[in-house]
């Protein structure tokens, strides 16, 4: 995973499997993105995502809060059924809605 600046946004393409190690990597990238001296939105692209873990979702939740506190937004793109069902299974439908609405 890496951060790419595209069309005035910082885009992170999520891997096929967002498991524990990938969650730790995503955390580091989000910290990096949040710390950048910019007002750009951070986009999580879910296109390739096939499997999600609780650890990955926790990082996404913490990322939402981190960027919000920096007056910026974490945006989800190309969210697929796997993502929706995973958030829903964990009782996080509201949080996903927030992520999609931003």
């Amino acid at each position: 995973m890496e951060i790419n600046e595209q069309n005035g946004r910082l885009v992170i393409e999520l891997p096929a499997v967002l498991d524990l190690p990938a969650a730790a990597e995503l955390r580091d990238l989000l910290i990096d993105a949040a710390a950048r001296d910019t007002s750009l939105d951070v986009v999580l692209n879910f296109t390739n995502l096939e499997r999600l873990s609780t650890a990955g979702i926790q990082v996404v939740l913490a990322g939402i809060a981190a960027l919000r506190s920096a007056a910026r937004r974490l945006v989800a793109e190309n969210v697929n059924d796997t993502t929706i069902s995973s958030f829903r299974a964990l009782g996080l439908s509201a949080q996903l809605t927030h992520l999609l609405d931003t």
Partner: protein
Amino acid sequence: MTDDQGYDLSQFKATYFEECAELLATAEETIARLQEGQGTDEDLNAVFRCVHSIKGGAGAFAFDDLVHFAHVFETALDHLRSGRAELTPHVADLMVRGNDILGDFVRAAQAETALPADHGADILAQLSALTGAKPTMAAPAPTASAMATTPTPPAFSTFRIRFVPSPDMLRTGNDPLLMLRELAGLGELEVVVDTGKLPSLTEMDALASYLSWTCTLTTGKGRAAIDEVFEFVAGDTAQIDIEELNDLPGDEEGDGWGLFAPLPSANASQDEEGDGWGLFGDAPGNNAAAASSVTTPVAKAHAVSTQQASPSQGGAVHTASIRVDLDKIDRLVNMVGELVITQAMLGQQASGFTVESHPELIQGLQELSHHTRELQESVMAIRAQPVKALFSKAPRLVRDLSSKLNKQARLVMSGENTEVDKTVIEQLSDPLTHLIRNALDHGLETPEERMAVGKPAEGTIHLAAEHRSGRIFIEIQDDGRGIDRQRVLAKAMEKGLVEPGQQLTDEQIDMLIFAPGFSTASEVSDVSGRGVGMDVVRKNIQDVGGRVVVQSTPGAGSRFILSLPLTLAVMDGMLIQVGGQRYVLPLTNIVESLRPSPQQARSLVDVGNVLTIRGEYINLLALHAIFGIPGAITDPTKGLVVIVETEGGERVGLLVDELLGQQQVVIKSLDSNFRPIHGISAATILGDGRVALILDVSALRQMGAVANAAQ
């Protein structure tokens, strides 16, 4: 894949596959009991738990094919244990095959290879048929689909489940997401998450768990099904509180839909948004949930418990155990070995001191000796495992082979819990398999042959293990035809293993079957008779310091006795002196020692030197003569005779100069460090740094017999 904290998922996978091997073996053993009609309901539960555990881990690693097959297998087992399907002999056979296929999927996942798409399709179809479900080779169907085919409408209950993972739960490979999904498969589920403990991004540990959940589940599957979802995390890994909310009358009839009031918070904050996805269909409970938002909760809790408090209710059984890499234990064993040598060295250095002159030193050395021994025994106990793991394959082997050979055989096992070193167990697998095959193929007669000689049509194979004299003995005994010595001898002569005219005892003829390339089978079969098996059997057993002997009675059967060391690292020995050389005699072989009188030590024609003791004649072997040691005592009445016993139970007297004392010795392999020497089993390092050879009593006896025959 590793992260910046060195976290490696492959460790979890390795542990998972180790557990799978144990679970598959346990399942096989338990299914065998069920197959024989000796199983209990708990056995069915045990098999279910095994399959469920394999499925759980497979889900965590996304082994989808494995999950799918395990799910169907598990559902079939669930039907059996709940009485919705009957355990017939055919179904028991199906369980055996199911476990085999499950093993195939596990091995494929471990090898990271894919099985053919239709692998196990026939078994899958039969398992599915057992539950009334349609078989599918596609992605796993949700558990709810199995419920839909349940012939009898179940009684529904509502449970409130508080699920608080420990911070370390994710690191153990358990993901709440999978559990909550599994929980959702049990019925209608409402989930309320508590994110209050989620720290800031910079403060959070991505591998730690911060969320917790309160769930309301309406299900017809009962409390046990919920317990199983959390079976492997309840207790240390997560706090699970399950509360049943079903006080309303009539709910056991299943007419309680919509009457149960979920927790007020269950729909207050989340569900109105959750419903909006439109992905979660028309479960009957949706209306109930909607209704409940305006309904005062009328149900009250009447049963609150935790998994930890009630393991007997189908919950997790918590064992205080950890998994440790075998290399680490081996390093520990080696260090203990070195410690034993150091202790012997200190003992030797202090041998000139007395308690009076150096009381504290002597006391300290005694304590060191005591603690070293305890340490050594404790370390060896870590490596010890019950032979049960080895024996568990036998029932199936006997069943399959007897069917293939058109023979009737009953397997009787005893001493399965006898413990022996892990390496010994691993090394025994092939020899034991071959000996059982041999007993079935060559030993047991066909039912017709047995009845013709007045035996029951069904033959018996007895597999036994026991500790005796510091060693472990494994016996494979059959009540078949016994060894046909004339045929064995003729075959041995034909193959040049025995010279024409050479006189052999019955025992020597029997042992010919272990000669390389020996086989009396007129046709090579895929069961046995390849002529390499028994040779390999003996070599494998000798490789771990063991020995195999055969006792056979024509017409009555044969008994193979495997004598094995409890451990491969340290043993108790008696240090003896012959001439200028020191040897170690295994203490377990020593019966007694004495200085014979002239009347006791005699020389008999055709026999050689013998010792008469308590009316018994015992062959007397002079070690100096066998090993060619100059300067040793040659007159038994001036030296000492140590009477030793071989694994076969034969006694022999060894003439030595002196007994120097008993001590623990660390076994150093001659095979790997030098080369095999007949009469010597291994070497050791003494306290003064000298190397002493450890005597192989059984081989010495054979050498003595040859020497006497030559004389």
